[in-house]
């Protein structure tokens, strides 16, 4: 059994891509949620299924209440998405190797055509950020014209989750490679970070100390969610206030 503190010390567990989210300026406007849905061909499930908790959001904004009227406060909006853990609890439980760690991108991948729909990964994710296709959700024509050709369209029985817009990572890397250079910080970003009107989401290389996301993460007041579980998330939050 590996103890959490041992995982933290291991050098191979430094992530590559990461995110910093500033909850103090997140207004909860849902622009990231809409942008993510449009970029990643996420199905809408309708009123009934969403009432059963089957909506497919890859990113959601959490808010909680503290106190009672009139001293009631809304906690800072908390965008919650796959934390791209360096030691992900969803990975070891998949019997089909559908959710695996990518060596190249240091991300938690979801291989849709391997997924057999056991939902063990979703069960084991402490952040509850995986969503399962309970049906082939209807997308009446001509809505399919909007589908992003760079992203797989998932079907019933498949688990899915935030990929850090891996299609954008690959496009940027291939372009840089063709031009004989490294990917420049800020050259591309994820759909959520690109849309965010408050610029509360910053995405980039966490293994590059010069990148904006690393600079922000080093400001000191950042925290990682459920860090005590030893999942080593690649998303850092500023609680703010």
């Amino acid at each position, binding site marked *: 059994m590996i103890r959490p503190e041992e995982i933290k010390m291991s050098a191979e567990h430094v992530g590559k891509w990461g995110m910093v989210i500033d909850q103090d300026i997140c207004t909860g406007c849902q622009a990231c949620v809409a942008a993510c849905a*449009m970029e990643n061909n996420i199905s809408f499930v309708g009123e009934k299924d969403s009432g059963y908790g089957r909506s497919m959001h890859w990113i959601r904004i959490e808010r909680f209440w503290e106190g009672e009227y009139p001293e009631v406060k*809304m906690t800072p909006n908390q965008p919650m998405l796959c934390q791209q853990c360096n030691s992900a609890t969803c990975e070891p439980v998949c019997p089909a190797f559908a959710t695996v760690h990518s060596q190249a991108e240091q991300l938690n991948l979801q291989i849709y055509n391997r997924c057999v729909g056991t939902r063990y990964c979703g069960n084991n994710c402490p952040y509850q950020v995986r969503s399962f296709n309970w049906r082939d959700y209807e997308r009446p024509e001509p809505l399919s014209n909007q589908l992003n050709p760079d992203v797989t369209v998932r079907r019933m029985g498949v688990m899915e989750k935030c990929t850090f817009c891996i299609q954008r990572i690959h496009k940027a890397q291939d372009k840089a490679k063709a031009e004989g250079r490294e990917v420049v910080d800020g050259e591309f970003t994820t759909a959520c970070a690109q849309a965010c009107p408050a610029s509360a989401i910053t995405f980039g290389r966490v293994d590059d100390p010069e990148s904006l996301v690393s600079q922000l993460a080093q400001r000191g007041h950042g925290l990682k969610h459920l860090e005590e579980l030893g999942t080593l998330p690649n998303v850092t939050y500023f609680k703010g206030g």
Partner: protein
Amino acid sequence: MSDKFSRRDFLKLAGVGAASTAILTGCGPASRYVTREPYMLMPEYNYNGQSTFYATTCRECAAGCGLVVRTSQGRAIKTEGNANHPLNLGKTCARGQATLHGLYNPDRVTDPIKRTRGNAAGTTVTWDDATQTVADALKNYKPEEIAFLMGTTSDHLFDLLTDLSAQTGINSPVRFGALSMFEARATLSKAAENLFGEAGMPLFDVGGAQVVFSFGANFLETWLSPVSYTRGFAGLREAQSKKRGTFIQFESRMSSTAGKADEWLPLRPGTEALVVLAIGRLASELRGGPLPRAFADVDPADAASKSGIKLETLEHLAEMFANSTGALAIPGGTALGQSNGLAVAEAVLALNAIADNFGKPGGVFFSALAPNQTEYQRSASVKEMQEFVQKMADGKFKVLFVHGVNPVFELPASSDFKNALKSVEQVISFATFPDETALEADYVFPDHHALESWGYQRVVTGSAQPVLSGSQPVVSPFYNTRATVDVLIAAAQLAGGKFAEALPFKDEVEFLQSKVASLMSETDGFFAAPDINTFMAYFQQYGGWWKTTDARTIPNTADVLNRNLVGAEAEFAGEGEFFFVPFVSPTLAEAGANKPWLQELPDPTTTVMWNTWVEINPETAHELGLEDDDVVKITSEAGVLEVPVYRYPAIRPDTIAIPFGQGYTAYGQYAANRGVNPADLLGQHFNEAGDLAFAGMKVKIEKTGKKQPLSRLESIMGVYGVGLGEEH
């Protein structure tokens, strides 16, 4: 074998089996890294053709944010903000993102149709016939019998109609939108006119301020220019180069804007003016010198007792305001939509005089006029719309053209627009979607979707620079639709005479060129071009034209504090015991309900999706014996609604609130027959500026005994009785 197979052996084998299963299924490190095999290369890892990017302008609201749309093989794939655009600097809101679900909406009007009013089925006509119909309507009626009603976007169409009306004598186009009704725009500009002697749209520099007091302005949701104001809010909170700014919100129901505030002050509805003046008086006393006449008449103790805010709190707020180097007060939304809304707006603008922030960073400015604009224009208030509706009802308008607005839904039912339509001989709608107004029209000649359209939008609410935001088609029209400007130009040619003379253009693009040509001679544009074709090419490439200079103007504030300001309480219409607050849904706004992904976005404060709810304080709900999802009947003097309860912890016990944005009876499969429209409860009461007193109603609540489960993103544990053994 079986007789030698002991229990101990069995356990040993089972143990080995379990261990090997664990290895094979991947509890060990082997599963963490795999080499991807070619057969499972997903589109994410492949090249799927080249994308083309086009700059255009968002038409989901009137703000005029610049978009860059990614297209692939002639299809629009994704909208992003235009990073060069001075208003939104590459950002978008949720509605801007979902505009593609409008473009590829399964319920668009696909062809020009003629219909019997109220009958959804119609017969398709040709565009030649359609153009002839418009030409006949222009020619066969007297100019004063022809009226145009427009929405708040498509400024180029507005300019075309303004020119047409100036030269032919037909009525000037009237513009309206539910958003501008709930923003109380007329009140804001009237207050500015009264205080500063000049009508205009005030611009509040939230980003440069240190302390922001907002009285009902939901500037992080839909108010005026939400993307730009959200950027300002991020600037307010920025704490690396300066002190983190403080934000205080005054309103009876915590909006998602108020949720971001450091302090939320649930004052009693109607006492806003008193509270503002009391803070003004206390702050003036702290600053010393003679007490300004504006704040002289108010008694802070009286304001405290009437508003329900403690006197110590008012003193503490006044101290915060008076001692800050960058204090700013913003009036908006619900605070202005009351019988005394104009007084509230004046008082809040006057409060800024104590901070002496006019024309300074973090202060109040007048928005710059857009590049090809000569005077400030605003959309009609509901009172002005009432005069319009009266003319319809009196038969003074014989032909009505409607574009970009759905007045049957967006005006309160008490305006009776639908009935007045019956007195209009011919109604021609240019609706892109089959909305309620199009259903009551004789003809629907569908305009293109915004992403298939030419045009421009003036940016008048959120940018320091004068911006003319340009539109161009990013995809070719998906259906047999036609640009309304093209239809009008062709019809004017057919009608001949003064109509043909008024619109002597080949097509919409030639008209646009005539409207932007004057910008070529301007010196401080961010690009210049020697001829119109080059200019238009740049205009399309960059998504518009803007100046590089800050053209905000400074209000003339000489007399602000010397006026008598009245702190009277607002009057409320109706009998009930609850104050009624309708608010615009932050995700759906006025026209988002037909876009399925907007429906599935959780409301930022309640997390409810796909429906309408009424927010009631949990204590009040308990007293009334109400639980979540209980359907209640809400009665005002103007109407009755049935709507499920959401127990909302951040609302005054004497107030209830319902979001606006659902309750359509038409408008496509995702919008129709879903939720209710709180505007049905609004009576015809106005403030002095002519804006509807939408927050000035009192209502009654009755239990119906029915249940309607709301879909919500927050945990359903306990909500539907799940996990409590009492499933409903």
